[in-house]
């Protein structure tokens, strides 16, 4: 039979493909820009540029580069002054006086004054504010702000109704956007948010929904003299622009980093570290953080209403093995709500459940548990949650606890978590930089807050005290006692502290992780040669 006259040959295909490749490679050689641009990644878009609306992690992280508060957390999770030069607390713990730094400039060139601080705080606490932390300062917490004065241009005084040890810590909280101060021109005459005019090292640049957000260096940034620490210290920007690309797929982000299209992946799943380790021009690092992951006991009927069954589960687990697998050795096992990185983590809070399979079997027999199936609810978004769940299932089986895993989409999972609608669940909590805040996320009246598994009035009293007392030694005693109660009653089993892993290209200098687990692009430079 004759050969079809239009049939392409293998040779012609190769020639065409090679030719196309050469042409495209030439086209890809776009001239380099003179400005230094650092590219990083967000797994999802930011929601807003306004601190007066409730928001999420990527938004907090972006706004933390634009706005600064009176105080900030440092690397050791202690409070340091930021826009304040110094601050004083009155003897009775009711008045906090902040002395502002001199000559701090807003992005619009205006100089920071005490009136600006009062203005921003009135907006935060005002009727129309959707600021997440407004309830903490208006009576939901142990204390509330009664008034804010500005006796002179550089002094601001906050008056509280009751002493509150966590006043500064709450002010500096990441999800409170560090109570960042914004200029009055951030809000238009109609009362609507226009743009974030702060004092931070960057301003918001281009924002293309679903594509990228630019943070542009603020050239007149008024830096502190102390070295960079946490969200405080010297925050001078060393690049012209930071481009935060929205890349939902982590595999794509890793490929882009290897190629050099990305400079930094600030939050890398520990499970993904191995793929990047050893790659040319890529450095992977990690550090333990303040987040916790643990097993929660839910409100659905289950054998875990019996303390002995909870204790048996706690004694059946090999915590070091779970932490090693889930966190790739970056964070140690920990059973305490006091994170291992906290200054309050001492010998008492370092004590853990003893792994004892025989004792666990005995407890189960006493409780009359005969292998009834128990559903462990987990989610498919956090790799560590799924890995921990599988290990818990296998370890519990050794003592006769029959666990079946139910994996949910994250939205469905959060809904069930908030309602306590599960038998047991594995849950990860974000970083809270004071042990009282960590405990507050898991302890409460479960008839009101079903998400909180630690429903013990005695523990709640101690926790409340720890939020009022300022003396460090006294707080340590309270945390030690709370830790003992937590291990005895097993209202929840904390497995480990979560770790922050990140990866950077070799031409990036100065990027480090910190306890708050948020990216920090100030003090980070990028050399011209790649």
């Amino acid at each position, binding site marked *: 039979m004759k050969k079809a006259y*239009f049939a392409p040959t293998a040779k012609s295909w190769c020639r065409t493909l090679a030719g196309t*490749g050469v042409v495209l490679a030439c086209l890809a050689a776009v001239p380099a820009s003179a400005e230094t641009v650092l590219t990083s990644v967000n797994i999802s878009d930011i929601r*807003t540029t306004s601190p007066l609306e*409730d928001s999420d992690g990527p938004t907090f992280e972006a706004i933390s580069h634009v706005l600064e508060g009176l105080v900030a957390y440092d690397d050791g999770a202690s409070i340091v002054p930021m826009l304040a030069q110094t601050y004083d607390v009155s003897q009775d713990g009711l008045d906090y006086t902040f002395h502002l730094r001199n000559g701090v400039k807003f992005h619009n060139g205006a100089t920071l004054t005490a009136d600006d601080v009062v203005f921003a705080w009135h907006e935060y606490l005002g009727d129309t504010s*959707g600021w997440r932390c407004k309830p903490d300062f208006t009576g939901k917490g142990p204390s509330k702000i009664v008034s804010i004065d500005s006796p002179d241009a550089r002094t601001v005084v906050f008056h509280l109704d009751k002493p509150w040890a966590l006043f500064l810590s709450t002010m500096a909280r990441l999800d409170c956007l560090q109570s960042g101060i914004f200029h009055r021109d951030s809000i238009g005459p109609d009362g609507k948010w226009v743009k974030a005019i702060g004092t931070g090292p960057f301003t918001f640049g281009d924002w293309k929904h*679903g594509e990228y957000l630019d943070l542009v260096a603020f050239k007149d940034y008024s830096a502190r003299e102390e070295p960079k620490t946490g969200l405080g210290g010297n925050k001078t920007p060393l690049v012209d622009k930071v481009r935060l690309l929205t890349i939902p797929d982590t595999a794509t982000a890793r*490929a882009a980093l290897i190629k050099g299209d990305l400079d930094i992946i600030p939050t890398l799943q520990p499970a993904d570290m191995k793929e990047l380790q050893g790659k040319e021009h890529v450095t992977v690092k990690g550090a333990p953080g303040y987040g916790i992951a643990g097993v929660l006991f839910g409100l659905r009927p289950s054998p875990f209403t019996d303390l002995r069954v909870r204790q048996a589960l706690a004694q059946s687990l090999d915590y070091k093995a779970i932490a090693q697998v889930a966190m790739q050795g970056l964070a140690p096992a920990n059973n305490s709500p006091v994170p291992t990185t906290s200054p309050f983590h001492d010998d008492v809070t370092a004590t853990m459940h003893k792994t004892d399979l025989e004792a666990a079997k005995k407890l189960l027999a006493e409780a009359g548990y005969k292998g009834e199936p128990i559903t462990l609810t987990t989610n498919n978004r956090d790799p560590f949650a799924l890995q921990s769940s599988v290990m818990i299932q296998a370890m519990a089986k050794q003592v006769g606890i029959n666990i079946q895993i139910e994996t949910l989409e994250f939205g469905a999972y*959060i*809904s069930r978590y908030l309602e306590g609608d599960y038998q047991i669940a594995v849950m990860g909590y974000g970083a809270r930089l004071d042990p009282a805040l960590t405990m507050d996320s898991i302890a409460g009246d479960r008839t009101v807050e079903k998400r909180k598994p630690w429903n013990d009035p005695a523990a709640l009293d101690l926790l409340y005290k720890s939020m009022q007392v300022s003396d460090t030694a006294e707080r340590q005693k309270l945390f030690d006692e709370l830790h003992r109660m937590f291990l005895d009653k097993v209202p929840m089993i904390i497995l480990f502290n979560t770790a922050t892993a990140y990866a950077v290209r070799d031409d990036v200098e100065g990027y480090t992780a910190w306890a708050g687990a948020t990216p920090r692009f100030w003090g980070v430079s990028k050399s011209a040669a790649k």
Partner: protein
Amino acid sequence: MLGFVMKRLSLAIPTVMIVVVVVFFLVRMFPGDPAQLLLKDQATPEALARLRHEMGLDQNVLVQFLSWLRHAASGDLGTSIVVGKPALPMALQAYGISLTIAIPSVILATLIAVPTGLIAAWKQNSLTDTALVGVATLLLSVPTFWSGLLILLLLGVTLNWFPVVGYVGLGEDPVRGALYLAMPILTLSLHEVGSLIRMARASSLEVLRLDYVTHARAKGASEGRVLAGHVLRNAFGPTWTLVGLIMGNLVGGIAIVETVFTIPGIGRLIVESIYQRDYPVVQACLLVVAVSYVLINMIVDLFYPLFDPRVARQ
């Protein structure tokens, strides 16, 4: 022609209305709401209640639906709960981006698949046929998330021909825009080539057995002329229908490819909006996809007489 178009459009209206109603109530049946997802482990009852009120989620679902329907009638499909922007422009913009991938992918796939399917049919039961059918089955079987990542690693990372992340619109910079679109287009084309080859081969086989093909050969026409002049045109009808269906599926269903290649198209927007329970955006996107599906298939039908004159006569 106009009558045909009007008839098809009038038939599409109930379809679109059903989609609207089903989508509205279905997305609200998912467990979890935007307020819960936003607050996560910091969701106090007060914060949840406040946020649900701000988002209008504390109203009865039926009241929400009637309110949405009233606004939709005037072209307002609501505002994104997540980013606070109007949902319809968001959906249309993302849809336009998806079209810039879907249209070239379908054209490229068709240009490759139709002649290949024809050759496979012409060489039926030969080694060439087996090889082409094998390749088609392989391409069809490989999921796009995997082939996409392989293409990204090969052409983007190893050969460094194309940018791996980011997106530039064709209107903004046509050359750079094309570079960003090349890999997703190639990924989708390869996947669709598989099904189109099989369809083109099957319909070509049927035509090759018909009397008029035998007659043309008996008259001494060359094989090239028989295939190009007699078989191709008549065999293309069923493939063209499949092209229409693929096109309709692609514009709403390329979320995986858009995610792998960071393209802000409508597929990715739908998936992210579902994860975030951004109801207005999900509704707007699905409405746009449903309407476009109807329109694309209508356009395909309008072109059908070009390949099969019998349809025009009917």
